[in-house]
């Protein structure tokens, strides 16, 4: 009897475990499907012939006609897609440089030099990250107009650091705090200046933090939409985030194949950059909740 009971209870345990695994994989499948479906659909659309794409009777997941590169060709030859990519990269690079030269020293200052005010000031700077573009684009539109930067990529270069600096300063502050202060103290005792110690001891140890700042400043600049839409109207000066959704629509005609090709190509690179460094991004956001 005891043996049977034991076998039964073991059986129900493993049944429970199997059911648990099935449930787990079902949930994994559901969330993966939900998250990635729009990208799969972009990829299918980008390579379908129009006759196949715009036929209600076809199964939309099958290639009923041969795949085509027409949409991709149209995107690269007859639209300013490459130009938008270049514009985006230029703006993002300039923003990265401005962010580095401001946020890295500021982060160091807050971590080491400003004493007990450092944390409060740092938190204050972090809070400005909560002030969204949708609140500032109207006053900044006026400022950009006064500076005669309307329709100019420089408008974006000037404005974007306003959201990259707060976050990256906070990130660097946390990073510098994680480096033991004794290392610099030792160098200073040995006759090094504070700046010398920063350059020779701290910065070489902060490569990972600086890399994170570069990636995030770049990714956040690529993702921005409201300022680019407000400040830039000529096609040739657009970034990819506004060029694709606004320029590939002529009147009421949507070039869906090319639209999806453009959306797919322009969204995968920042997505890869972002996910490689996401853990640090999250650590930065949640640093306030935990010591």
């Amino acid at each position, binding site marked *: 009897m005891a043996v049977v009971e034991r076998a039964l209870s073991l059986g129900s345990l493993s049944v429970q475990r199997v059911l648990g695994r099935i449930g787990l994989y079902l949930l994994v499948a559901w969330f993966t499907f939900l*998250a990635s479906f729009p990208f799969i659909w972009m990829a299918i659309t980008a390579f379908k012939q129009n006759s196949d794409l715009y036929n209600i009777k076809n199964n939309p997941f099958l290639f009923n006609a041969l795949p085509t590169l027409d949409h991709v060709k149209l995107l690269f030859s007859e639209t300013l897609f490459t130009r938008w990519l270049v514009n985006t990269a230029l703006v993002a690079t300039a923003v990265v440089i401005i962010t580095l030269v401001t946020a890295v020293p500021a982060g160091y200052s807050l971590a080491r030099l400003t004493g007990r005010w450092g944390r409060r000031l740092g938190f204050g*700077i972090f809070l400005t990250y909560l002030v969204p573009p949708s609140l500032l*684009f109207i006053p900044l539109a006026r400022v950009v107009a006064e500076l005669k930067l309307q329709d100019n990529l420089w408008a974006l270069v000037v404005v974007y650091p306003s959201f990259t600096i707060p976050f990256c300063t906070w990130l660097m502050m946390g990073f510098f705090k994680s480096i033991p202060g004794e290392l610099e103290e030792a160098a200073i005792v040995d006759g090094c200046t504070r700046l010398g110690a920063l350059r020779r001891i701290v910065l070489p140890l902060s490569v990972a933090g600086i890399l994170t700042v570069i990636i995030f400043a770049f990714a956040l600049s690529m993702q921005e939409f409201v300022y680019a839409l407000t400040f830039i109207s000529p096609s040739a000066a657009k970034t990819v985030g506004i060029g694709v959704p606004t320029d590939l629509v002529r009147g009421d005609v949507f070039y869906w194949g090319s639209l999806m090709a453009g959306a797919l190509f322009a969204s995968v690179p920042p997505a890869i950059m972002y996910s490689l460094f996401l853990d640090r991004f999250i650590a930065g956001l949640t640093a306030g909740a935990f010591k």
Partner: protein
Amino acid sequence: MRTPPPVSGGAIEDVARELPRPVLGRLALLLDRPRVLGPLMLAPAGLYIILLVGVPLFFAIYLSMSNATTGSQTLQFVGPANFVRAMQNSIFRSALANTFIFTIIAQTVVILFGNILALVLQQKFWGRSVVRFLILLPWATPISLAAIGWKWMFDSLYSVVNWMLKAVNIIGPTEFPQWLGVPSLAMASVIIVHVWRTFPFSAVVILAGLTSIPQEVIDASAVDGATYVQRIFYILLPMLTPILAIALLFGTVFTFTDMGVVYILTNGNPFNSTHVLSSWAFQVGIIAGDLAQGAAVALFLLPVLLVGAITLLRIASRAETGV
């Protein structure tokens, strides 16, 4: 005078040899004081934030009480007239309501999905790193590009969403819901895209909180005979409260202030029924050129942001004092 003996290589020794150069003289000495160097290194970032966040914020308040338009050169003070005029407009009132409706419904679903997904991602399973990458795609993609993808999925004629719903018999063979053409469905579409975009973020934040819970606590509960479900409700969720608050807070701010989804997906249509505060501010302030009115509309976002900031401060100070 004896010369110091040569030292072996290595960063610290190298640095030790570098004595303050006489050329820099007193400047170098001055720069070595934290009281001087600290503010100096903080200044560029601080100035940038003051000039491009602080000043524009006050300028927005000033604009909202003026009669500024995109063309005008001079501003006149008109008091609260713009706010009164904004509230008299029925599109504004529906935009205000929509902003709250979209945020509340989307964030409810997001926190639910985020919690489940975080618990799922905490398990070990085959292909976890690939799955993690795919799940993060919505959050990492530029918002306008994701939204245009959804616009195509909700197309009036070739909606793949409808095709799939038909395939699994959720809608009948002759039905074809106009996702972006009917106010209620258009509102649902905006919410769906917000959920889709934010749940990965929320899941990853919650996952970071889950992994920071000490294993001993979980082991202790197992020894005491707690089941998995009991563990979730009596141990994990209570310990996760601060991080859940952070996930909810940022998710709320991102959804509440976002303009990209509405602008690309519906542009406020059909019949201006899906506008939110930010898209209506853009319509009034930039497209129609009434900067003052647009600034007034956008400023309605401020109270909620203030509440968000105060909440964040309270969570942080609680973590600091260890209460």
